[in-house]
């Protein structure tokens, strides 16, 4: 009973804040609603017993992605109202395309038929969840069955990083940078000079 109530609360807030994300006039508000949606989705994961996914969702999406969005919204001078001007005029076409796609998908669902032994071959072995934690179970799969894919994903992320640096990093000469080692290496002898000034002569 309680669980059902909590589920509907999380689900309701997720959907409502998702709607607010696309309807809010102020882009900063939209990002804040997005964060709310992420938090409630994490709550749904918790209810489903997937605590690892819930934590990752909060850490990655709220901690990194949403903050990045906020930065983009605040730092880039984009007139969002202007961007949206055509929104209503595109609406009928969009609805039409959506309706056609929906009808086609409905046709597919109508003839829904799985391959003969599809349920047998689904997914990987699920360990007894009473014995080990979520994180443990995921780790065991990632480092055994999916080891190859895990490493390949790592390489892809590396390429993304190389690409970002290669395409955006510019070495600009003439920029004053702080060099702490150089600062610390300074001593009295190298930075202070005592001159005897003859009276009336100047330096």
């Amino acid at each position, binding site marked *: 009973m309680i669980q059902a109530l909590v589920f509907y609360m999380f689900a309701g807030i997720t959907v409502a804040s998702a709607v607010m994300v696309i309807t809010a006039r102020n882009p900063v508000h939209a990002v804040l609603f997005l964060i709310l949606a992420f938090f409630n989705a994490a709550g749904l994961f918790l209810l489903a017993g997937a605590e690892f996914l819930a934590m990752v969702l909060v850490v990655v999406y709220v901690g990194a992605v949403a903050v990045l969005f906020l930065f983009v919204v605040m730092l880039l001078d984009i007139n969002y109202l202007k961007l949206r001007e055509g929104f209503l005029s595109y609406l009928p076409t969009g609805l039409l395309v959506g309706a056609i796609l929906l009808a086609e998908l409905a046709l*597919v669902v109508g003839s829904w038929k799985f*391959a*003969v032994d599809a349920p047998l071959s689904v997914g990987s072995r699920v360990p007894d969840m009473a014995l080990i934690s979520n994180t443990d179970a995921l780790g065991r799969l990632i480092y*055994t069955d999916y080891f*190859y894919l895990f490493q*390949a994903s790592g390489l892809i992320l590396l390429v993304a990083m190389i*690409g970002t640096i290669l*395409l955006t990093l510019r070495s600009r000469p003439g920029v004053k940078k702080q060099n702490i080692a150089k600062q610390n290496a300074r001593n009295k002898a190298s930075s202070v000079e005592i001159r005897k000034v003859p009276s009336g002569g100047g330096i």
Partner: protein
Amino acid sequence: MSDLNPALAVPEIFMALSALALLLLGAFRKQEAAQGITVLAIITMVLAALLVPAGGGMRSLAFVGMFVVDSFAVYSKLLVLLASALTLAMSMNWMRKENLERSEFPVLVLLATLGMMMMISANNLISLYLGLELQSLSLYVLAAYHRENSRATEAGLKYFVLGSLASGLMLYGSSLIYGFAGTTGFDGLAHAVTSGAPVGVLIGLVFVLAGLAFKISAVPFHMWTPDVYEGAPTPVTAFFAVGPKIAAFSLLVRVMVGPFAEMTQQWTQVIVLLSIASMVVGAFGAIAQDNIKRLMAYSSIGHVGYALIGLAVGNQSGIRGVLVYLAIYLFMNVGTFAVILAMRQKGRLMEGINDLAGLSKTHPMMAAALAIFMFSMAGVPPMAGFWGKLYVFMSAIEQGLITLSVIGVLTSVVSAYYYLRIIKIMYFDEPVEALDRDTSPGLGLIMAVNALLILVFTIMPAPLVSFAGSAASALFGG
């Protein structure tokens, strides 16, 4: 099945570790080290190519069935490694002259090649996708590599946006296939569709086909090709035109005749359509081009169309035709791009077809090499390109795909026009201004070797054909 068996992936692991080591080396050294790193990257690919045949022969699985090595994989990997090593070698001099040498360039080429090898060895929809993304992501960066040039960045952005769309289509298709068949492994999929595939799998397969057709730039998914080929730096264009095409084509062949062999009836229609459209657009699109890089883009679209005929046939001799075609395509394209890379007037880059006027008088050897490549591309007997087309058309006629073969022959007559036009410009037009003489010895060597290989194949096609034959038989359990 629970075996990781990493020994089978030794070439890939070696490539990955070398790429990481070279990346570190480049980060700690100054930009002057770029040339040395390029040489090391070429050596890495040569060593990997020496490691590849060790896994061949029997079909064996690694990483819990995600990774497959058979003689088909060995054949395609050798082609891809050869293509990448050659294009990297061709790029060195050009990059130095254009002041574009960066140590990241060879590293990205290495990682892209690694992605291609992973695509070729994919035995699961997930490993297929990851290999494809590793390759594509490196290619997006390479397309925009010359970031001060607005055309290069435009090319990179276009390629990235359209490529992401294609990846999205493919992922959607993969999810449908997984949803209806219950597995992503190719062996499991082959088993799942034996007794009549559900319509969901078919729809998923069409989406996957669309994504892969984008990667090989088959019409109607070819829109990006001319713009990207023209905008990207020429060595990158040379790289795009050969390695990724061969890898994506091998992947397409493996997916179609592997897990979905039982659905040949259904996917053949799609392949036939792609093939006809590519041949027609490749032939007619190139006629009006003045820029040789755009011309090569349309030419590669046309070649993809011819190779698709072999896949449409779908049997062992058809796939053998595809493999022979891809190998010949490699040598013709690498050779032609070596000539394009050498096109300079007073140090400035030239890309117009008319800039080749009178090449036979100023650079007789270069003109002769380009003439060999063009005759071969046009499929004039007895050049290598003719044999490539012959094997493909022969298997199509045996299988009764007469219409497809007739269209293929007609479009290759049309495309002969623009290949022969280049020869006419080189041999019969008066030079307006001669191209620079200081072609680097490396480029000259690559042109000569490729031209020689095409001539050798003309005289004795047997070794390549038998190698391709054994590679094709690996896919049909022979």
